[in-house]
């Protein structure tokens, strides 16, 4: 356990300085909330209707674009060798990396998302669900994004590949979370959407480390 805790500390510090901590997340949402009225027109009820969904989608896009390079640095500067020769299996290393990424970037975004939704006029009762979706979904995005990043290691056209690989894996959680949000807005039961999201996240967290580790081993070879 001890080495993994050390690794988590290091990865957190790196992700924090790479992503800049919670401030960019907040700034990102602040910018979105400022702009949206301009883009959609300022009628409050129209804004309020799309606000939660926007907050949710913006989270997915932000994850998509910032997770891309999770492994590349470590691959290019030889750190991946060091990690592969450590006391923990590479699966655990990959999981820790994604977890750190989520803690450093996903978690602040999850806190910012409901604030942005409310600032845009979404009804306050929606906020907890936005938070829950962002919290759970962010974890899935982190792990799935890490998988894309690991698979694209050592290839030309990294960005292209990651987008193509990750998009199909991002679609289901976005659909589940969006479903829960629209159901809630329509006054319908929304737990099944959230449950599906949680299930997808659990599957992603459980399975993608295996694929990530295999991809890293393949890249290091």
């Amino acid at each position, binding site marked *: 356990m*001890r*080495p993994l805790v*050390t*690794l988590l500390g*290091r990865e957190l*510090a*790196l992700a924090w*300085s790479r992503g800049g901590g919670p401030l960019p997340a907040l700034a990102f949402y602040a910018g979105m909330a400022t702009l949206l009225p301009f883009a959609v027109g300022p009628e409050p009820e129209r804004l309020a209707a799309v606000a939660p969904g926007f907050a949710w989608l913006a989270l997915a896009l932000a994850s998509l674009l910032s997770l891309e390079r999770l492994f590349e*640095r470590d691959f*290019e*500067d*030889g*750190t*991946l*060798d*060091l*990690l*592969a*020769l*450590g*006391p923990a299996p590479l699966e655990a290393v990959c999981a820790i990396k994604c977890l750190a990424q989520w803690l450093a970037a996903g978690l602040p975004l999850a806190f910012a998302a409901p604030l942005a939704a409310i600032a845009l006029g979404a009804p306050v009762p929606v906020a907890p669900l936005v938070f829950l979706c962002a919290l759970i979904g962010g974890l899935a995005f982190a792990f799935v994004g890490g998988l894309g990043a690991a698979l694209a290691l050592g290839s030309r056209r990294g960005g292209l590949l990651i987008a193509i690989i990750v998009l199909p894996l991002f679609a289901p959680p976005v659909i589940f979370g969006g479903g829960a949000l629209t159901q809630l807005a329509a006054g319908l039961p929304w737990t099944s959407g959230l449950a599906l999201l949680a299930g997808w996240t659990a599957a992603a967290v459980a399975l993608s480390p295996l694929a990530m580790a295999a991809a890293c081993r393949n890249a*290091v*070879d």
Partner: protein
Amino acid sequence: MISRIVIEDLALRRGERLLFEHLAFTVSPGETVALTGRNGAGKTSLLRAVAGLLRPVAGRVTFEGVEPEAAAGALHLLGHLDGLKGGRTAWEELRFAALWSGGTEDGARAAAATLELDRLLALEVRKLSAGQRRRLALARLLAAPRPLWLLDEPLAPLDSVWRVRMGELMVAHTAGGGMILAAVHDPLPLPSRGVEVGA
């Protein structure tokens, strides 16, 4: 403890090219083996294969006396790429490497003292000179004791004084039962057995 490392009938391929075949030698505790060979002969690839990062197309590498899964925990690999992040301080990097490889923080501090890095520990790695950076990488070997050192041109960026010091530290490691497998272009400043790769 590892009682011996046996390399038998090894063949490595990179891309489409076969680097070498039928390579065989052993490393016993207390021994230093210097790998020599032309540029591109496959010295670095061989070190990575011994570390288990590269899968040979034929033959095998056996660590006698330890389980195959534990082999990675018995060695340090110091390659051309030293796995140091320019933006972190020397101490952060050394401390992490020590704890990650099973050493302690005190071990890291002692290693830094041995390699006279104390004054530099607060600097970001990207600000170190080439020789200082290499010393930091070498400090990781001392920070967590592991029997086998796999070194890729370890002494090249060091000045003459540090080459001698490092030679002494390598002698001390082998005297304590350690093993060293080093790829070199210049002779090592300690008694060693030569193995030529891809001749």
